[in-house]
């Protein structure tokens, strides 16, 4: 019989389930934990697809991905003006409401977006009450169109009619142009799922006052480099999604001479609106991001995500080089903080087109830049940095212009690779607001949502078929 002498001291390396490492650590013994798990949760069909996409097809995919990443990184989006949605957005009809997220029929639209769409119908003058608006929508007399299919993106539960003003953002390097509505600000506003008279009045204000006066300002400033401001804002604590305070201030400073020079009796109203809207720059950042993804998505054969969008019912993504949507149920926002008196029971699922920011290196990708975001992901800057680091594991590149002071000015991760997402089971983190699910209260909290894995898995399998 062979006698094996056991060591007097045991030091453990644990692979897989952390609970074994925890148990050893709790007993005061040294342990190193390796966070290993089977790729794609061990789904053999998916593993086979991954083997092909990481194997014989990898060189071509990696080449395409490098080009997509280059386009996301090197386009220079500039704000060139403001136009009416019905004129500027290609393919939008006279009786069309453009909304966030994937295409959806009226009967499946979630409560906050229903209210926002009805407010948009009323602001267009097509109905004078929510019931009247609802009747038109139920009868199909007003068309619903996803903003993403018309070169546009809108945040939260935004919906805009053809008369509403939109930012026009050019990406001269890519020859693309993208649009976003003017941010509606805080309070009783449709993008938070409100349809009160005050909410409709805010839309009218944007159309009658903010749009025309901002257009006049922009005529004076000339094109404004959006990422020139965003990269500075990142150094000042913005993630450019949940927090755009600093960048908004930089933007107001950029247009201040023209703002003061406006010859309008309503100039002060615009000033008041801008002073009270710390998320004003959000929509500009989104339009800039969309102008980049419109360029990037023209690349064939890539495994990078170029659309990520939610309407509060469905969560949809698309990959570069394909028009095919991969859709699953929109999830609740997991890491969240709620206003007093509210909680997950009242929270609507994740909503809005703003996840486009996470594709190009902002929002959750830039969490490490923002103490404000840290509060939602654990409370410390280490937690915020960990959020960015996790996105880094599923990204193929780092921005050369969006830099993180807390990571020694490393670029933010960008270019989400569906192969890495499915292999590692890590989905993009999206910094977002949370709306009331049913009663039109508006915003009830904010948090960091995790994209659902199912649509990424389907996209991966479709890519494998497409490249076969």
């Amino acid at each position, binding site marked *: 019989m062979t006698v094996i002498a056991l060591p007097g001291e045991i030091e453990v390396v644990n692979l897989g389930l*952390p*609970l074994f490492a*925890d*148990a050893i650590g709790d007993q005061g013994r040294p342990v190193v934990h390796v966070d290993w798990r089977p790729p794609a*949760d061990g789904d053999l069909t998916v593993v086979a697809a991954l083997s092909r996409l990481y194997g014989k097809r990898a060189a071509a995919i990696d080449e395409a991905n490098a080009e997509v990443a280059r386009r996301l990184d090197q386009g220079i989006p500039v704000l060139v003006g403001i136009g009416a949605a019905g004129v500027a957005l290609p393919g939008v009809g006279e009786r069309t409401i453009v909304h966030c997220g994937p295409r959806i029929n009226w009967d499946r639209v979630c409560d906050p977006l229903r209210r926002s769409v009805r407010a948009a119908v009323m602001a267009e003058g097509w109905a004078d009450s929510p019931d009247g608006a609802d009747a038109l929508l139920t009868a199909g007399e007003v068309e619903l169109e996803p903003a993403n299919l018309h070169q546009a993106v809108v945040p939260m539960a935004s919906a805009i009619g053809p008369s509403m003003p939109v930012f026009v953002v050019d990406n001269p390097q890519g020859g693309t142009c993208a649009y976003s509505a003017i941010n509606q600000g805080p309070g009783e506003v449709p993008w938070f799922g409100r349809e009160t008279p005050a909410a409709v009045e805010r839309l009218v204000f944007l159309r009658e006052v903010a749009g025309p006066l901002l257009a006049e300002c922009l005529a004076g400033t000339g094109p404004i480099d959006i990422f020139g401001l965003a990269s500075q804002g990142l150094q000042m604590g913005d993630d450019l999604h949940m927090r755009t305070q600093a960048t908004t201030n930089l933007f107001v400073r950029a247009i201040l001479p023209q703002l003061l020079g406006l010859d309008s009796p309503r100039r002060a109203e615009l000033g008041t609106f801008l002073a009270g809207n710390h998320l004003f720059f959000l929509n500009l950042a989104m339009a800039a991001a969309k102008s980049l993804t419109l360029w990037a998505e023209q690349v064939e054969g890539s495994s990078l995500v170029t659309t990520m969008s939610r309407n509060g019912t469905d969560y949809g993504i698309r990959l570069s080089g394909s028009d095919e949507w991969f859709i699953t149920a929109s999830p*609740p926002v*997991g890491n969240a903080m709620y206003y007093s008196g509210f909680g997950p029971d009242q929270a609507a699922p994740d909503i809005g087109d703003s996840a486009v920011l996470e594709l190009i290196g902002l929002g959750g990708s830039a969490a490490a830049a923002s103490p404000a975001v840290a509060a939602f992901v654990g409370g410390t800057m280490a937690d915020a940095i960990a959020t960015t680091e996790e996105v880094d594991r599923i990204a193929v590149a780092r921005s050369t212009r969006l830099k993180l002071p807390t990571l020694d000015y490393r670029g933010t991760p960008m270019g989400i690779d569906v192969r890495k997402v499915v292999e590692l089971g890590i989905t993009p983190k999206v910094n977002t607001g949370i709306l009331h699910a049913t009663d039109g209260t508006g915003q009830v909290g904010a948090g960091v949502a995790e994209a659902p894995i199912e649509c990424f898995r389907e996209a991966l399998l479709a890519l494998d078929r497409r490249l076969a």
Partner: protein
Amino acid sequence: MLELGAGAEAVLAAGGRGSVTAVFRNAAYLRLPAGLFALTTDDVPSGPLHARGALPIQRLVAGDPVTVTASHLYAGGVTVDLAGATVWRGPLPSAGELAAGAGVALEVLVGAGPSALADAAFEPRLAGAVAHLDRGDLAGVVDALAGLGPGLTPAGDDTLAGILLVTRARLGPAAEPALVEQAQRARTNDIAGAFMAWAARGQSIEPVHRFLTASAGQDAACATAALADLLRFGHSSGADLAFGLRLAIAAIP
């Protein structure tokens, strides 16, 4: 419809925020401020830590955030409606019934497969545990078996759970605090520890309770069927639990 074991009910009633600890084919363990419990599919037996239902377990990933409110559980992308959940508690025979059925139980348990502790490597510790059990020294049994052997819940812990459950049935509810204290002395992982603590409170997985009540009723056929179901539980946990039942029943004075 969701079915909650007594332990899962207690953890969920306390609410709060936590995370998913581990995900398996048909069960996911979630850690909340009041402790651990498992979300399981319908094909997993009822158990003290189980919240059973038609649940999309595979949508969960270890590390997913968990929030529990009065009416819902939110785990990663999964939402579970807690309203209307039923509570399951496994029945235990009385001390007298247990003693009366000991012969049938031991006869049926002969058909149980070998415990993972049957490996020669564990023989010295196992012999020590049996000696402690014969002397009524439960602390000695815990020291000998806790954390011993293979498995997510180590074989020694599953065996201990069987011993604790039979001991609880034999000594009645008054013994629970002392038995729970012994279970909590075991140096093992949290999942195994939680199962042992609930065994000390008289709750284990459903086939165990069916086996004990059938044995107490002298119903060998029903006890045999229950044992067969028990042996299908886990990789070797069912056999290890059955081994613990056998040791404890054989030690009944």
